[in-house]
């Protein structure tokens, strides 16, 4: 019983089906058929990440840079031994047939470790099918070249044949008459091509059948007459229709297949093997449908363990006690210079363009650097290979589109763009008073474009793709992305206190290439990129125009020396040049010692400041497998040159995993991490500090991950981090040798410490018919922040941010939250309806309580000084909020319409975001957070 692999199946719903390995159905005995069809496979480990199937452009994870660190089924499982199920006698007696849909877990050695029915068929069919499948034997599947457990969806058909008819004699043999049915199978609602589907007339398993190719095309030769067409495809409902076929004629048809399940999108579960102690992955579907995030992918990260809640909806990433700006966010390996649009608006990453998000709260490998907090890696979406697809989305703030299409075989393109229109709506709602003018013009736009090349559509695995390419293969893509934000605010008039004009303009563009070369055990990924940044700021007579150029490259070389040893090494280089044209009234405390109180108008200073900086890293790491242990030692050597500064930092790291059982993994990590100061901080005194060095951190973690069931996963991780030499503002006052005194604007005095435990319990959908998914995220932690030395003149915030402390220079971080609990749940109601909820609770942030006993009036400043209790000895009230999202979709023949209502703070909880004191520092007032906020959005896709 040989199984004949066919072309990779494609085109399930809006998501191209990756990680699926289809097999042709095979007829059984002529009188009694137990016919099986292995229809889908996906990597299994728990978290519902999209597996990178035998995707031609994706390199093995070992050698891939962050952008390409996608899982690849490099070798699909093949059914080596099949056992026929006995037909249940009662069902046979009653003439019943059934198709039993099963989820089979294939262990790394190819044995069947688990079988679960997804749709019980009853009448003894389930038991018979499960008993038979448990005796199956597969060839081990490989993920990224390593044998790995995978999961496949399997349909076991029990069918009854018609009684055999008497065979005609040779003299009676009619002349063969033939009609041809040709056509294309298209996914209803998305127009994706359905590959790997079986087309036949009637349900006779011996009848001729055709299997659709990668474009969903098929050609079926059958006897003329009426054909009761049956189309069977994984992830789609059985399609039946009737066609009248004329002799010697070809009938051309298009069949639109309806995806199965209540949702509009097919579930593909998978997770690639983790190379880090903790990596949380968010799929595009999760990113778009998590309530309370407005479908913003970056804000979904905030729902994961280890991330403290940022005030309001600012979306800042506060990871394991680190401060804002200490977690790097990258798009396919290239840093995103600006994460959010205006005033904490949507992130510059269009949700439609992402494939998935990987979040590393700590303990990441040597390939990653330039961060002492966590890493967020946005993986972008490769263009569709079957046909043109797209979507248009409109919501409260902006509208955008996404398009993807194949250009020719092996080349595809994806593009997205978005623009806000609040600048056109605001004039209608702004107050209009005589004697005063108020004009606010905010606008933003962003774009992403990606062109892929080198894909081999007919290859099911990397080995096959390489074979097709003649032994070595190159794939790659070119991507461009950028963002533009402008804000102009004009207020004034004779009846206002002052005339005010603010103009800001911030933009960036990045172009990156990606060339992946594979030959045998060698994989090389080269990622060059260039960028342009622009900032413009005008406020009264003050103005600053900044221009930045960036050029960088990464090269990652991976070599599998033996099944037990894989080595990766590479370079990560970036050069930036920033220049600023500045016109400012002489700023106090930079040019002269300010007198407290009214600020005088300084003489206009005109400066041109330019500075280049280079940051390079050489890294090497290896995976060494010893029994059930995997050791990954690595080191990253960093060198920075900025102005006159020369900095070196060596970051050794170690990651150890122990695969206790197939379902349980113990894991630990420790290492050093470095983050260079931003280039502009190195400009000369008094506006910068050319003597800054690397910010450093020690990170360690220890955890266990256990797969409770095929759909439930638990991860518990403890962590302990220390940050040191962090850049804070301001620094100390110094005397210059030639006379003069300055307060250094930045120094490396920042220190911090964080420890805690993170728990993640995730339930994923087992199949399209499984209605419920979600996760529970909990973090228990303590974060300290401060300075290694004394507080500078004027106090200064801890870590460059936060409230001014007293004489103590080290204490609780202003973002410390002891308990952070998030519950996210989504339920597919059916008929296009989907309901989601997110509940959050966090401990209130620390505050320093007022302790007023008498007034302290600073006459010159016309302000009162406060009297306080011990620093950070109190907390704001705990934060709790419920967000709800309802989605409704309508699937039409060629397109799908979706409408959503996302309601933040459903029960209108009065949470406290900040506290401030009255003018005499006698009483504390609470600043409320966002009240109930409903947002409606519409999305059409085809």
């Amino acid at each position: 019983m040989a199984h004949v692999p066919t072309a990779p199946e494609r085109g399930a719903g809006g998501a191209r089906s990756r990680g699926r390995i289809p097999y042709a159905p095979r007829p059984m005995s002529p009188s009694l058929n137990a016919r099986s069809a292995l229809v889908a496979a996906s990597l299994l480990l728990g978290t519902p990440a999209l597996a990178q199937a035998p995707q031609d452009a994706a390199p093995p994870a070992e050698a891939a840079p962050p952008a390409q660190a996608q899982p690849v089924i490099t070798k699909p499982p093949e059914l080596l031994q099949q056992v026929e199920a006995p037909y249940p006698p009662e069902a046979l007696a009653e003439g019943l047939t059934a198709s039993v849909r099963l989820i089979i877990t294939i262990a790394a050695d190819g044995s069947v470790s688990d079988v679960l029915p997804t749709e019980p068929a009853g009448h003894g069919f389930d038991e018979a099918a499960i008993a038979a499948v448990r005796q199956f034997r597969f060839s081990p599947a490989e993920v990224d070249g390593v044998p790995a457990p995978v999961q496949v969806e399997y349909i076991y058909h029990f069918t009854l044949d018609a009684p055999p008819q008497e065979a005609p004699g040779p003299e009676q043999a009619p002349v063969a008459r033939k009609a041809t049915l040709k056509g294309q199978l298209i996914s209803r609602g998305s127009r994706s091509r359905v590959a790997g589907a079986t087309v036949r007339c009637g349900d006779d398993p011996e009848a001729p059948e055709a299997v659709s190719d990668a474009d969903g095309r098929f050609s079926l030769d059958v006897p003329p007459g009426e054909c009761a067409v049956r189309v069977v495809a994984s992830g789609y409902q059985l399609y039946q229709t009737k066609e009248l076929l004329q002799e010697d004629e070809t009938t051309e048809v298009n069949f639109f297949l309806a995806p199965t399940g209540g949702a509009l999108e097919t579930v593909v579960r998978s997770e690639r093997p983790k190379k880090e102690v903790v990596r949380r992955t968010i799929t595009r579907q999760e990113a778009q449908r998590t309530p309370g995030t407005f479908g913003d992918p970056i804000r979904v990260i905030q729902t994961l363990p280890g991330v403290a809640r940022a005030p309001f909806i600012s979306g800042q990433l506060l990871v394991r006690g680190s401060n804002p700006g200490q977690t790097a966010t990258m798009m396919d390996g290239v840093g995103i210079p600006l994460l959010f649009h205006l005033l904490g608006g949507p992130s510059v990453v269009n949700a439609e363009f992402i494939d998935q998000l990987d979040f590393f709260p700590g303990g990441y490998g040597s390939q990653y650097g330039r961060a002492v907090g966590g890493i967020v890696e946005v993986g972008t979406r490769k263009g569709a290979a079957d046909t043109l697809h797209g979507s248009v989305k409109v919501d409260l703030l902006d509208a955008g589109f996404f398009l993807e299409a194949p250009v020719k075989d092996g080349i595809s393109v994806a593009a997205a763009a978005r623009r806000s229109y609040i600048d056109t709506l605001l004039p209608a709602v702004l107050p209009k008073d005589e004697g005063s003018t108020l004009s606010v013009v905010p606008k933003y736009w962003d774009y992403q474009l990606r062109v892929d090349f080198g894909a081999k559509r007919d290859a099911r695995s990397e080995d096959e793709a390489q074979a097709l390419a003649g032994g070595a293969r190159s794939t790659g893509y070119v991507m461009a992305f950028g963002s533009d934000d402008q804000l102009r605010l004009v207020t004034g008039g004779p009846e206002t206190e002052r005339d005010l004009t603010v103009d800001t303009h911030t933009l960036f563009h990045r172009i990156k290439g990606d060339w992946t070369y594979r030959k045998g055990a060698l994989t090389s990924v080269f990622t060059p990129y260039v960028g342009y940044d622009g900032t413009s700021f005008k406020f009264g007579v003050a103005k600053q125009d900044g221009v930045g150029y960036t050029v960088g490259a990464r090269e990652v070389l991976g070599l599998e020396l033996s099944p037990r040893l894989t080595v990766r090494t590479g370079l990560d280089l970036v050069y930036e040049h920033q220049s600023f044209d500045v016109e400012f009234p002489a700023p106090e405390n930079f040019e002269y010692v300010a007198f407290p109180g009214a600020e005088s108008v300084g003489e206009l200073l005109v400066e041109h400041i330019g500075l280049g900086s280079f940051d390079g890293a050489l890294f090497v790491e290896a995976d060494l497998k010893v029994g059930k242990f995997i050791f990954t030692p690595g080191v990253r050597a960093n060198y920075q040159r900025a102005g006159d500064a020369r900095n070196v930092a060596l970051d050794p790291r170690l990651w150890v995993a122990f695969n206790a059982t197939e379902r349980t993994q113990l894991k630990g990590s420790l290492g050093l991490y470095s983050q260079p100061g931003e280039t502009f901080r190195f400009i000369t005194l008094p506006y910068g500090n050319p003597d800054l060095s690397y910010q450093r951190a020690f990170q360690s973690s220890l955890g266990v991950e256990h797969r409770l069931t095929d759909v439930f996963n638990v991860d518990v991780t403890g962590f302990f981090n220390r940050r040191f030499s962090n850049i804070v503002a301001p620094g100390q006052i110094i005397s210059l040798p030639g006379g003069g005194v300055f307060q250094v604007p930045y120094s490396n005095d920042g220190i911090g410490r964080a420890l805690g435990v993170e728990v993640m319990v995730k339930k994923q959908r087992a199949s399209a018919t499984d209605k419920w998914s979600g996760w529970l995220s909990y973090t228990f932690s303590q974060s300290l922040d401060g300075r290694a030395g004394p507080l500078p003149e004027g106090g200064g915030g801890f870590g460059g941010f936060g409230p001014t402390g007293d004489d103590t220079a080290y204490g609780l971080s202003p973002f410390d939250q002891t308990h952070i609990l998030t519950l996210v749940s989504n339920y597919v109601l059916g008929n296009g309806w989907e309901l989601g909820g997110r509940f959050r609770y966090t401990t209130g942030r620390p505050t320093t309580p007022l302790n007023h006993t008498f007034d302290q009036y600073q006459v010159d400043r016309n302000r009162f000084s406060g009297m306080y209790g011990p620093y950070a000895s109190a907390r704001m009230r705990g934060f709790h909020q419920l967000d709800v999202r309802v989605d409704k979709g309508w699937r039409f023949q060629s397109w799908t319409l979706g409408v959503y209502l996302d309601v933040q703070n459903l029960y209108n909880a009065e949470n406290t975001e900040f506290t401030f004191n009255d003018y005499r520092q006698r009483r504390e007032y609470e600043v409320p957070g966002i009240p109930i906020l409903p947002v409606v959005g519409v999305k059409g896709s085809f």
Partner: protein
Amino acid sequence: MKTLLNTGVLLLWGLAAIACVDPEDKPSSVHDLRVLGVSTEQPELLASTCEQTPEAFDELAAEVTYRALLVDPAGEGRPLQYQLWACADQDDRTCANAADRALLAEGTTSAGELTLPIRPGAARVAEDKLLLERVLEEDAYQGLGGIRMPLVLRVAAGGEEVYAQKLMVFWCPVVEGMKANEQPVLPGLRVDDVPWPEGEPLELSGPGPFVVTADDVSDREEAYVVPGLRLQAVNLKEAWEIAWYTTLGEFSLSETGGADFGGQQGRHRVEWEPAAGATAQEVTFWAVVRDGRGGSSWLVRRARWTP
């Protein structure tokens, strides 16, 4: 830059949210014991030389007149206890460090203007050390902003207690062009564009709001020179601020004027609104001007308001 932008975003959100919260106690509404302003005449003392000569110290030890504007509308003329110290550390808001302070005056007074002749430049502290020298020792900027001596006035009555710190500036000509500061003086005030005389109360009626403006002060704002942190001369121009106070209702803004870092100056225009439900009464208004370098003075005006 990213960090700065993030911080800016949070700050903007915070300011927007604070604007939605309305504390009960308003700065412009005077209802209990307060010190509304302090001035010294001269506002600063400029020695003729930066050499530490006896003559220079004598110039800095000159007598100045200390004035404090005390209000106590609910006190019904009760006596107010006061002490006036000079001390060395600006962060010592109450001159609590006995070793570094000198008592300049003490006694009993009542609400109104407290006037005291003092010689802070001659004050000595522990070990008979000249306080000016101690102030200089405590100054991280080594006198580049002048020697700024804290003068702390403590006023107490009943259970109320206020400490008011004013910095007295002692200079020497570090860079060319420096000259002693002149006291800022407001030329006059207007209500609904009508001059507001000093002597007699203005008749006002109705719920308001009444637009109160200060006569143009732009020609009185001095251009001046200070030493820069690199010992260069830095040219500045004053941008006066006016703090507004009333015994009834409140002003739309408690402060006007000044300059932001973009050099944009505010105009001195506020709206006064009587308290809802108030009865006819005489109302006192104060406008305290500051020049941003230590100079200050005030105007007092009255009005008879009827609903």
